[in-house]
């Protein structure tokens, strides 16, 4: 058993002294694995991935990459980490500098890291052909290419520095179903070929179920459940996870599942109730939930859940 590539250890991000955008998040991600980070808007997913990438310093806690504290990186160490951890953006077109040609955009990683174009460009071309980009397209500007091409440029840029960790923020958002498979297959191939580790943020539970091997569910800044994907989807232990899975609409008319529909909406992070953050919408909240905030704790089969009364298998 090797040490995990990424360890998130009790990370909190507090804005303005009171708003807990992320509160005590803890999980690990093994080399070569794919972790799905799931949650609705306002859950803190975006803040958490920025912490992972070292763009935001956590108020408390540590992010360790390869055993080293990400927040302490300075100078050359920081640049090393910048090459090791990359990101694929949700909206590919707006993640490309609009006044640069695609060629310049793909040269950026090399220029920033002081690498000679001459020595490294052949490798970029190899990568491009694996991704399905042609050099002839590179003299265009981002607004002159299709969304699919912009997406591929974004992926190529993220991989040029040979990262080990790739954070993918909603990689399939806005994609038609008929082409989403292409992208996910490509990401899978690249993972196999380059030994990548993925941290994938997605609200699409079908995608998460299919492509991740572990999953972390966030609600209002807290991780409410983590565990192996098949286990969590088969037997969610947190009532929120169960509701989330059941809210994902099923196509097959013969397998309409019983919906657990959550009442109410996510409360404002500015005035959280004492106790469990999910209590206002939880169908099974009890007195203890209103008094005491549950911590993430193991419930077997590799699952961790932050609930006083976790669901057991088959209800």
């Amino acid at each position, binding site marked *: 058993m090797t040490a995990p590539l990424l360890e998130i250890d009790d990370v909190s991000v507090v804005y303005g002294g009171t708003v807990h955008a992320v509160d005590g998040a803890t999980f690990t991600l093994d080399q070569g694995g794919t972790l799905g980070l799931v949650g609705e808007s306002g859950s803190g997913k975006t803040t958490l991935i920025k912490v992972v990438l070292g*763009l935001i310093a956590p108020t408390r806690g540590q992010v360790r990459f390869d055993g080293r504290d990400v927040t302490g990186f300075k100078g050359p160490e920081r640049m090393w980490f*910048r090459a090791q951890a990359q*990101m694929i953006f949700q909206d590919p077109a707006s993640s490309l*500098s609009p006044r640069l040609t695609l060629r310049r955009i793909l040269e950026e990683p090399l220029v920033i*890291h002081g690498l000679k174009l001459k020595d490294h460009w052949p490798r970029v071309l190899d990568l491009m052909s694996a991704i399905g980009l042609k050099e002839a397209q590179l003299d265009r500007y981002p*607004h002159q290419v299709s969304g699919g091409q912009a997406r591929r440029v974004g992926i190529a*840029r993220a991989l040029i520095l040979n990262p080990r960790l790739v954070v993918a923020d909603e990689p399939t958002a806005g994609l038609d179903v008929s082409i989403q498979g292409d992208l996910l297959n490509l990401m899978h191939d690249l993972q196999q070929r380059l030994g990548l580790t993925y941290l994938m943020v997605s609200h699409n539970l079908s995608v998460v179920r299919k492509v991740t091997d572990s999953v972390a569910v966030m609600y209002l800044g807290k991780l409410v459940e983590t565990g192996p994907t098949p286990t969590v989807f088969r037997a969610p232990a947190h009532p929120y996870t169960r509701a989330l899975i059941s809210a994902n609409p099923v196509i097959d008319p013969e397998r309409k599942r019983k919906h657990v529909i959550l009442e109410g909406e996510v409360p404002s992070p500015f005035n959280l109730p004492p106790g469990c953050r999910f209590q206002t919408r939880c169908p099974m909240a009890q007195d203890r939930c209103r008094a005491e905030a549950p911590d993430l704790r193991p419930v077997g089969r590799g699952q961790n859940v932050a609930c006083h009364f976790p669901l057991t298998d088959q209800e």
Partner: protein
Amino acid sequence: MRGVIAQIWGRSTGRLGLILVVLILIMGLGAQVISPYDPNELDILNRFSDPTWIHPMGTDHLGRDLFSRMLYGTQTALLVAVSTIIVSLVVGTLMGIGAAYAPREVERAILILFDIISSFPSLVFALAVVALLGPGLGKVVLIVSITLLPHFGRVARAQVLSLKNAPFLEAERVLGASRARLVLVHIVPNIMGPLVVLASMDIPVVITIEAGLSFLGVGVPPPLASWGTLLNDGYANLTETIWPVAFAGLMLTLATLGFTLFGEALRDAIDPKLKTDR
């Protein structure tokens, strides 16, 4: 670039503006070549001449050739306008970008400074400074560029703020780009459009301020020709001849009209909202 010019040419006001601007540029830049006389050469016997084939715009009270003086006045106006705008554009933009990235207190201080500058009537401010330091071309440039700083600074700041959290900048940060690289390679090219438009619209403002200061005798010092001093000389001798006032006024009018029309056409041509529709 070619597309922008074509768009300006495509509308009648833009075309008029472009023609006037090019004409004025030719007059100003080519003054040394075009002018038939030394602008300071006196010909007392021939003073107050009406326009003739020898003196196309006539002569002034010292018998100097008005056409030559007008060409050199154009050169002065352009020199003052361009250097003022460049100083103001560069310093203002840097202050604006600085404000957008600075800690809150510094940002507030810069904004208050902008408010103070723009609350001063620029002509009064200029008069005060000249009264204190004496007249001079460099001082005119300095004064006017300070009064224009808030224009560029505010627009630059607003542009940077709207871009600051753009995903493409975040992508560069993830790659490890330094802040200087973010600003110079990625932000500046994206905010230049509106600033260039603003600069071209400010040119007529600078030209009028320079002419006004010179008219009042606190701008460009004699014997340098300026539309303002030409107007003033002509005004003093209006009983003898109207031509100096008429031609200097005409030049001033054509220059402000030309640059204004050109600036408006330029704005419409590179307005980002119109551009994305194509």
